[in-house]
């Protein structure tokens, strides 16, 4: 299988042609440096993203901002948002507090990135 992706390591934005066989990257073309290949490997086999969101705090108009402590698998972004929607946070929430542990079974915690007193 062939896939076209854009390398995000620098502003050049090389268009990479990635050949995949049985889910494994067998060939990467189009990169102008070594980082392109590494990125293609990661992005085509286990793409991951940090998720950030604004989450309501009960009884407050100001939401709390949160992030996954580390990137989570890309396909878990929307499930993660859905799970965040079920949260019933109450103030105070402090920067660094875990608001949701092991989101969607990824093993990654969601933590607050601001303080709402």
């Amino acid at each position, binding site marked *: 299988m062939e896939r076209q992706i854009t390398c995000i390591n620098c502003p050049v934005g090389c268009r990479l042609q990635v050949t995949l066989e049985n889910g494994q990257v067998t060939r990467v073309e189009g990169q102008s440096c070594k980082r392109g290949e590494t990125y293609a490997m990661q992005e085509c086999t286990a793409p991951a993203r940090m998720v950030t969101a604004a989450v*309501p705090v009960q009884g407050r108009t100001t939401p709390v901002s949160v992030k996954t402590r580390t990137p989570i698998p890309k396909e878990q972004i929307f499930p993660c*948002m859905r799970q965040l*929607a079920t949260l019933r946070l109450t103030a105070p929430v402090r920067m660094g507090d875990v608001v949701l542990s092991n989101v969607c079974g990824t093993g990654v915690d969601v933590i607050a990135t601001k303080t709402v007193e």
Partner: protein
Amino acid sequence: MKKIIVIGGGVIGCAVARELSRYEAEIILLEGGVDVAEGASKANSAIVHAGFDAKPGTMKAKLNVEGVKMYPRLCAEVGAPYGQPGAMVLAFTPEERPTIEKLYEQGIQNGVEQLRIIERDEILALEPNTNPDVECALLAPTSGLTCPYELTYALADHAAVNGVNFVMNARVNGIRKDGEGFVLATEKGEMHAELVVNCAGMGSGELHNQLSSRKVRLIPRKGEYYLLDHELPLLFTRTMFQCPSKMGKGVLVSPTLHGNTILGPTAEDIDDATDVSTTREALALVNERSRMTWPGLTLRNVITTFAGIRAHEENGDFIIGAVEGCPGAYETVGVESPGLSSAPAIAEMLAGQIAGENALPLKPEWKPAPVRKKPFYAMSLEERVEAVKEDANYGALVCRCEQVTEAEIRAAIRRPVGATTIDGVKRRTRAGMGRCQGGFCSPRVLEILAEELGIDPTQVTKGGGKSNLLVSTIAQAMGKEDA
């Protein structure tokens, strides 16, 4: 006590209501929009015309010249801005000179004072940024400026403190004579009155035709404008007209009383009287025509573009007075330019007629207009020190571009005819009028509006109707399925 309904809360309706409030009567003003000054009164050139344009002998000529004379005192009385920078009408070719001469003659006949025809050297000495190819000009020192919506708000407030009841969102869809009085079908239900005054602007033709057998036809005429930031130093101190055509006074370049420069309008007859959209073609035309007057024009300082609708009556004159064959009904129909300039005279004349014909007694006491504080941006340092001591909310700058404080925004909402929308606050205080166009201040203005009006922030609108700024809380939005 006679019950009078004034239909329409534009500058004319509000001026008429204010004049009527001198007399013993129960007065209701019905406005179709969410606020007063929502139609032609919010989007025009803001010029108080000297009065040389109108054909001698017409209503327009008479009321314009009378109106202009009333302006300085009226604005001082109600607390509206007024200035008299003068105007010029420019001719660029020898062929246009007769037009200038004709305007001069007309002006003299209409009773306009201080008119002069001046030549190139004098034009360039007075207004050095004028196109040097100019041939000659009519100089009209009595031409003035106001701010049409601020004037309307001030008139409305003054009417309100003298008992006029303002009802917004009450468009009048139909009107008929019923015995001695009238029945009005409005968005707020059926209403009755003994006397009606139709000041419905673009809608006044339709109402007239329901009351009178002599039909009129109003044509919506759209004008589009550019507004330039006051960061740009004023390049013209006077209103600079070009020679008029049959479609109106042509494109002008003029200062505003707030130090902005306004360019426009175009004049296009359209079908939809509610269509205030701007178009690429018309704006290009404004740009091109303005360059005739001001070759150094730059659009880099444009902060906004807008369009306004004028109600042009087929025969070209105002129709003002009692509705023929319909006792108890009065009207102001086809009030296009110079309508703003004529407003004080129209109101005085019409209210006098109504009072006379219906034997309305004068009230023993007519309250003065509420006194409003000077805007913060215009205060001296000492005045600012005092203002913030009196009200700490003067210490919170909400609009950075125009230096509008929280105190002024709250005051605008609490005025007798107060702001209920973001646009209403904007036009009363100038918050959001500046170069960022509300980018920074609109969230805070929205919050203050919600607080003052006791409504949820999602209910706050830009300009009434369904113009809500926010659609839901994030909690509500997140509760839904994947987008």
